[in-house]
């Protein structure tokens, strides 16, 4: 509840300022205009379509990028040879801003869904890969030795010690990846989409409707936050065993 005070007060001041003529409503539409715009989109029956296609792109790209990132991250975390083989290349590629690949992706995969989803997957891949690989490599050697005492092979070692021990850090990697997925979907939808929240942003700019732009931003915020909470909640149920620092709840 405490977290609501700041945004509610800010929205109220913004609305009052706009109505009192202190800010230009042409460039900075008041919250009520934004709500009206959202209501209009909903009334036209297109709101869910835009939200749905953006969410679907993020979801498919996220699953793809996270899967590849998980497999490669696990392999380079577990095997020194695999790490020596792949990690330097991946680290070098990581330094290229992923959006720089966009023109090439469009040439290779066309302007439609494939290139968009691959862009998102690429953005998701790196944080997932890096976090998992690093987390596995830093699992307590003494726990791994318990596995050796029981004669575990590589598969059991990964499934029963390395992966569970890396899970809390891995989840942070997944959440980072998901955040980047939402970032990349905007870039992908800027480059020619007929539906989606990124399309609404471009449309708002080209037709001079700032309320539409802000409405899309609000929708991005809501969807991003919701998906992150969902992932954090699911992860929290799996990592309740952690004995870490928890700040005291206020009040």
């Amino acid at each position, binding site marked *: 509840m405490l977290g609501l005070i700041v945004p509610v007060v800010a929205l109220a001041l913004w609305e009052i300022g706009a109505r009192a003529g202190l800010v230009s409503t042409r460039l900075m539409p008041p919250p009520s205009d934004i709500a009206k715009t959202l209501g209009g989109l909903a009334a036209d029956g297109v709101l869910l379509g835009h939200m749905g296609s953006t969410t679907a792109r993020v979801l498919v790209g996220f699953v793809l990028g996270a899967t590849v990132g998980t497999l490669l991250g696990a392999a380079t975390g577990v095997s020194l040879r695999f790490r020596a083989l792949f990690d330097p290349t991946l680290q070098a590629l990581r330094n290229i801003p992923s959006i720089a690949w966009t023109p090439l992706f469009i040439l290779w995969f066309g302007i439609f869904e494939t290139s968009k989803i691959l862009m998102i997957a690429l953005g998701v891949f790196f944080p997932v890969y890096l976090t998992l690989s690093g987390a596995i490599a830093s699992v307590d050697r003494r726990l791994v030795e318990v596995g050796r005492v029981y*004669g575990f092979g590589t598969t059991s070692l990964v499934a029963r010690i390395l992966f569970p021990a890396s899970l809390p850090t891995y989840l942070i990697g997944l959440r980072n990846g998901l955040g980047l997925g939402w970032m990349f979907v905007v870039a992908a939808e800027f480059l020619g989409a007929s539906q989606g929240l990124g399309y609404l942003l471009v449309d708002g700019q080209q037709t001079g409707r700032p309320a539409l732009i802000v409405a899309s931003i609000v929708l991005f915020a809501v969807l991003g936050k919701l998906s992150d909470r969902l992932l954090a909640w699911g992860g929290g149920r799996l990592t309740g065993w952690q004995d870490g620092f928890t700040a005291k709840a206020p009040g």
Partner: protein
Amino acid sequence: MIQLSGVSKRFATGLLAVSGVDLTVEASEIVAVIGPSGCGKSTVLRLIAGLDTPTAGTVRVAGRRVEGPSRSVGVVFQEPRLMPWLTVERNVSFGLHGEETAGPVAEALARVGLDDFADALPKELSGGMAQRTAIARALVTKPPVLLLDEPFSSLDAFTRIDLQEHLLEVWGWYRPTMFLVTHDIDEALVLADRVIVFGGQPGSFEAEITVDLPRPRDRTDLSFHAYQDRAMKELGSSSRDRQARAQTPGWPSRAPSS
């Protein structure tokens, strides 16, 4: 049950940790090794466990040459090393693959007095309870050989004495061969049939004390004090010898420990 002959271990760093160790431990015997930290006594335990391989000599358990960890050897480490994401019960069954677990796990937990904590997570346990869980995990397969590497050294004195009693009860249960590494003289004398004094750089066996006292042993008894004195003297003389050697001109000086 355990046989070491001419065992040496040199680490990849070049450090010679132990040299020329000969040892025989009979079935159901409890042998304790005492010595200052860093003398290589834990290295001997790791060689018996199959976690390290000797650079010279052979290690045999139950007549078979040790080439890696085996189910017939249970290990309890200095730290409990529990999987923090598993309950006590599932930590204890950690080493069982695919076989019936409920019975052995319940029995092992009962033996260490943790029946009521089967569903607890490691973060909810005290240090002593965590170490008891680790002992139950090592016992669940009833290995004929149990190796204990300073198992109680991070616990307070009350818990330590309590766990030493538990350990003797466990021994009475199915009489495993026990090899205990410790730096606590009293612990060695309370538990072991034989106490071996380990020391030097590289480490080797320097003296052996057969503890001829009935169990449970009374730490306040005069005869117990006599053994304490003897163990102290052996430890003292082994370290005095080393100092004398180090200070005598003409003796090769010790390699700097890395």
